[in-house]
């Protein structure tokens, strides 16, 4: 019975805890709400698409589907990606569309209670602030929670 309850909590938006995948981009830790994540794949050959938004690295073939891949680093105004064997592409599903985002490393899955999440009105100095909808506290570390829908849909 306990297990069933946890599942309900995850799927229910209004519940008081949510699960995030913690990824690292540059020196920072970012959290991506697990409900948007379809898959996490290793970095693979990205086909460049000419004349598109600069933060789109191109497209990949994921089991017969063509999926555009976005660089969060470029979108957030950071330095360009440096691929390593820890680089991952997180496949996000938003509003029926599928999109990949490149992250430096995938760390862990955390469950955050509402009490652990702080609002972010005061972090305006950050370039990324428009795409952060909260700061999560986990084991003494701070995680910027990405508003992944805004990140993808804007611009």
């Amino acid at each position, binding site marked *: 019975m306990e297990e069933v309850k946890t599942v309900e909590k995850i799927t229910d938006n209004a519940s008081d805890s949510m699960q995030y995948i913690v990824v690292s981009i540059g020196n920072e830790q970012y959290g991506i709400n697990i409900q948007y994540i379809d898959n996490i794949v290793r970095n693979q050959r990205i086909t460049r698409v*000419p004349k598109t938004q600069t933060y789109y690295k*191109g497209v990949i073939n994921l089991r017969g589907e*063509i999926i555009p891949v976005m660089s969060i680093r470029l979108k957030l105004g950071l330095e360009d990606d440096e691929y390593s064997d820890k680089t991952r592409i997180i496949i996000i599903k938003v509003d029926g569309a599928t999109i990949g985002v490149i992250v430096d490393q995938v760390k862990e899955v955390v469950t955050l209670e509402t009490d652990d999440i702080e609002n972010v009105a005061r972090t305006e100095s950050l370039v990324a602030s428009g795409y952060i909808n909260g700061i999560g506290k986990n084991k003494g570390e701070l995680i910027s929670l990405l508003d992944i829908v805004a990140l993808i849909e804007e611009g």
Partner: protein
Amino acid sequence: MDVSQYLEIFIDESKEHLQSLSDQLMILEKEPDNSDTINEIFRAAHSLKGMAGTMGYKRMQNLTHDMENVFSEVRNGNMKVNSSLVDVLFQCLDALEEYVSNIQETQDEGTNDNEPIIKALNEFIASEGRDDAPAEQEASSQSTEEEAKLENNGKIVLADFEKNAVNEALKKQLHVYEIRVCVDENCILKAARAFLVFKNLEGHGDIIKSEPSVQDIEDEKFDFDFHIVIITEESFEDITKIIKSVSEIKDASGYEITTPFAEAKDEQHEEAKESEEQTIAEQKEKKEESKTAGSASGKPAAQTKPVASGNGNAKAKPVGHTVRVDIEKLDVLMNLVSELIIAKNGLVASSNEEEGGVNQSFNEQIEYLERVTTNLHESVMKVRMMPIESVVSKFPRMIRDLSKKLNKKMELYMSGEDTELDRTVIDEIGDPLMHLLRNSADHGLESAEVRRERGKSEVGSIFLDAYQDGNNVVIEVRDDGNGIDVENVKNKAVSKGTITEEQAAVMTDKDVIDLLFKPSFSTADKVTDVSGRGVGLDVVKSKIEALGGDVEVKTVYGEGSTFIIRLPLTLAIIQALMVKLGDEKYAISLGSIQTIEDIPVSDIKYVHAKEVIHLRGNVIPIIRLRELLDVPGEQPEQENITVVIVSKGDKQAGLVVDSLIGQMEIVIKSLGKYININKMISGATILGDGSVALIIDANTLV
């Protein structure tokens, strides 16, 4: 009876009948005396009525019933077809279409009784069919008598047209028999036996009448005998023998009708009563009964073709050779074929890599697989192809209505309706074509006075031609009207601030015409409800481009204009030329490629600082794809460059590529909605090695 399982058939067939009614009405308006057309209309209306009745759609049935009455009057020569009658009939069709679309959405016909239309129809009958008026009072008493007579001697009472048929047959020295068929009293499947009787007689003569009606017989609504009237060349003995050859038929007896019927007017009304009984629409008001004189003729379609009576429940139909398939299932099939082709391409690629290691038979098998997948793809494509007719067949009616509304005389000429296109394209192409036709009718064609002054026929002509051209389907909408007044467009554009005067001065005619495709640009001086709001041509263009096609305009001021739509034959899988630019691979649709040339660098000339080449008398601009697509790295120095010559309409361009990879069958995939792609990239495809190549839309580069 549970009819829900027939709903889809009902909707499809209703639409077919409505379309055929609309087509035939157009013909009838032009040739009011064409009896084939009238008969055809009658059949379609009757089938509709029967179907609606079977499905329990009373309102639809009533309306078709009244239409049928009108047609019957027309057929009997009591009524002349004129334009206002056709107008009312078209209103009926619109109302019926509304019923059908309601049924399609909600399984219910809705609550609109369409009283005004029914009233108008009845007024037509009342005013035009005046001959019947004196007999009307007698009708009710007459019919009761007749009914009694019918019950007493069981003989068939024939309607006027049936008598005419008998008379005609006698004139032609054919035999007419009235036969009473008795079914064995122990017979369990009476209807089946009766059906066999009809079926066996089919090849031997025409059954013009049966009592009870064929429908009732099929529904087993008869005791142990029924009557038929048959026109045949064969002898009475032969016919009864055929009937008796059906097992469990006890007896067939009757007599030959040898004397022609006298033409009697008021007998019609007896029929009215009689056949009213057969039709389910019996519960109608009394007063209508007398007016519905013609409904006796309601049966002929069912009787001359007893087996294929156009009924919603196709139980008596011969086994069909077609299957209706949900389009989604075809999409799934298509996707699977696409996957198969990708997998095949993968096999080809890996066999090419393993030099020497692959033996002969492996290669043969791969070639075999290649042939099969190509054939499979073609077959699936063909299944998805539909003639464009299903879209364009509604246009004659539209032009007719426009002609009235705009008060201009015009004719629509269509050709190539059998040209086939992918189903998805067919679904989308209707609106753009309608826009173009409206445009031609409203802006294109001049008023009759202007046409006279210009020495043209008063009746404007609009042409809609469809034909296949290589891997494309071309649809042309042409009119012999005013053409596009380039200066006027220019002035409008300047006054609206779309372009500056300086820009206008240097614009070519083509540039100006392209302005028409800009959003919210209209040259109409006034907005009508036909067109002129400026939401036309840009919608046309974007829709057609979304389908992978393009629109071109040719116009001569004072003589007319032509809109040429080019559409790819297929959407999902195309033959493409793979080319290499640096490390990147790109696909160019084979459809737009004319030739591939090796050109010495020294042959490149400059015109207006742009690179061109001279090729067989043509000056062709060349486009360096590497630069256009920002391919990293520099093109290596070469003595010769490889140029792919592409064409759109009569324009050409040469695309410079690094090298050619070869021809390949590719599956087009979309790149998704969030990534902005330039117009020149029309999609992407997955190559045999799993990598992705982008598809260049050469049309946008020319």
